[in-house]
């Protein structure tokens, strides 16, 4: 289809701009502006750098006095000198994975629907909904989870109703807009010409998606899921309200447990010495996890840019 040709207003050539006298300080001004802007930009990187150093320094007593073996053990009793964080690590992994299992299929379904099937009115309606959902403060989701989801789980599954299941559901709602939006963007970024070629050969929309569009967008879709995972890893408030909490390995999906974030939040105010330092060690591990995920996303998006000629696309 040809783009609509706009009727062009006939107008004379623009009047020439009168050239003023040359500014003798033009060069210096440019330099000042460049440096001011450069400093603005440096703040974020500098902040990150200081953050890593600070976390590392504060967690040093824990690594030195308790030792890595102690920290990566499963017993957490600071009064007895046990600083095992395995329970929290497992909790974090479990709720993040759970949220992906629930949230990712919903989000990807939404993305594919919006990309390939939705009529404009539906696109607008659901797109706006996603935007608003992305902006809902996590405390509200946690509060709703605590007041409605937990009693519901308690009624159907028994126990306290707290634990990995309700935490995963709350997180799934939180990461849904993140994954859906980014996955949709990467689907939209696939040249339309591919889909057209496929459709013009008699492929159905679904065949086109499955054989052409989704494979071409795959690195971007994975990146979307990973960014969603990153958000789930770091979320604290909403999880704290529905996970229990209790310092114990989860026996099943509805027994109270803890995550790295919730443990740090609950104990940061009342800890001293090595206990406090071990909380910093947990924060450092959490940061390392997120950085690892960011690195993964970067690798995947580099693959997308390199062109769709990568081996992964031969299917």
């Amino acid at each position, binding site marked *: 289809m040809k783009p609509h040709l706009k009727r062009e207003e006939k107008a004379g050539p623009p009047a020439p701009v009168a050239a003023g006298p040359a500014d003798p300080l033009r060069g210096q001004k440019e330099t000042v502006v460049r440096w001011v802007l450069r400093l603005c930009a440096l703040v974020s990187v500098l902040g990150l750098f200081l953050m890593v150093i600070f976390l590392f320094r504060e967690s040093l007593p824990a690594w030195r006095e308790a030792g890595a073996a102690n920290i990566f053990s499963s017993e957490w009793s600071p009064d007895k000198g046990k600083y095992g964080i395995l329970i929290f690590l497992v909790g974090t992994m479990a709720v993040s994975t759970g949220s992906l299992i629930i949230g990712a299929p919903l989000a990807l379904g939404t993305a594919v629907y919006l990309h390939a099937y939705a009529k404009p009115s539906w696109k607008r309606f659901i797109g706006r909904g996603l935007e608003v959902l992305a902006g809902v403060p996590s405390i509200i989701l946690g509060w709703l989870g605590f007041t409605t989801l937990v009693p519901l789980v308690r009624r159907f599954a028994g126990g306290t109703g707290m634990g990995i299941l309700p935490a995963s559901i709350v997180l799934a709602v939180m990461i849904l807009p993140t994954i859906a939006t980014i996955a949709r963007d990467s689907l939209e970024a696939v040249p339309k010409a591919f889909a057209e*070629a496929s459709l013009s050969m*008699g492929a159905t929309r679904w065949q086109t998606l499955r*054989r052409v569009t989704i494979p071409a967008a795959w690195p971007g879709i994975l990146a979307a899921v990973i960014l969603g995972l990153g958000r789930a890893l770091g979320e604290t408030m909403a999880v704290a309200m529905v996970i229990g909490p209790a310092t114990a390995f989860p026996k099943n999906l509805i027994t109270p447990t803890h995550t790295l974030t919730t443990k740090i939040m609950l104990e940061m105010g009342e800890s001293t010495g090595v206990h406090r330092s071990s909380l910093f060690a947990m924060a450092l591990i959490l940061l390392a996890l997120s950085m690892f995920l960011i690195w993964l996303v970067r690798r995947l998006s580099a693959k997308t840019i390199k062109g769709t000629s990568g081996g992964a696309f031969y299917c």
Partner: protein
Amino acid sequence: MLHEAEEKEEETVKGTKEAILEVIERPGDNRTEGGREGIGTRALENKMELIGLGLSYGDRKVLEDINMPIPARSITAVIGPSGCGKSSLLRCLNRMNELVDGARVEGKVLLDGEDVYANGFDVVGLRRRVGMVFQKPNPFPKSIYENVAYGPRLYGVKQRKVLDRIVEESLRRAALWDEVKDKLGSSALSLSGGQQQRLCIARVLAVQPEVILLDEPCSALDPISTQRIEDLLHELKELYTIVIVTHNMQQAARVSDFTGFITIDEQGSPGRLVEFGETREVFTNPKEKKTEDYITGRFG
């Protein structure tokens, strides 16, 4: 849903059609399947036919009352100035316009006498029979082999041997086999623009269409690649019915047997078919003043 057959349009259609029938004798159902001995001497059948075709995008009318035959096993060129709706016209033939939100088609498009816009007409089957090559070469980001095997795979061909045969045959027919036979596994995007376009033609040939639509297939190519594609079209018309949209009049004159000229009266008004006939006639002895002005370069 897009189809709105209107009884009263039929009558106006007949009037316009008479002019066309003067140029092209059409022996009704007396179909001839065999060879052809040049235009004029052979009996012509119409593979497709546009009857009162109109197209609008939302409130904007793009095409109006197009009546035009598409003779079998020959090349029909559609020419006209930019923005006259000729590409849109092409996309009406395989119902690709349906992918545009708000597109609405009026009138009929017959394929072997059957209206492709009739309720219940199988779009997937239509697009299999009426293949399309786009303006910009658009091979999939897959290997050369997988590009050609794409269509057959869609229709459920799984056996490697069969696929191998189809791929080779299609690439040969598209005059690309010798250039790529040793690197079927490499990415289609590593080919030159002209090769990519011939690959796209091979991809279409692999599903054995009856009609091939080409939407300015050479506009992104250099003269040598263009020449190769034109030679290829000459060979292909023995087996297929070809419709080519081009804004290059020399190309239309070189490759086509029939030419339809579409234009718009002013910016924003719908495109109409001004003249249709044998290419030689249209170019050497146009009936309409507008056609003459266009091909002599007075406007467009």
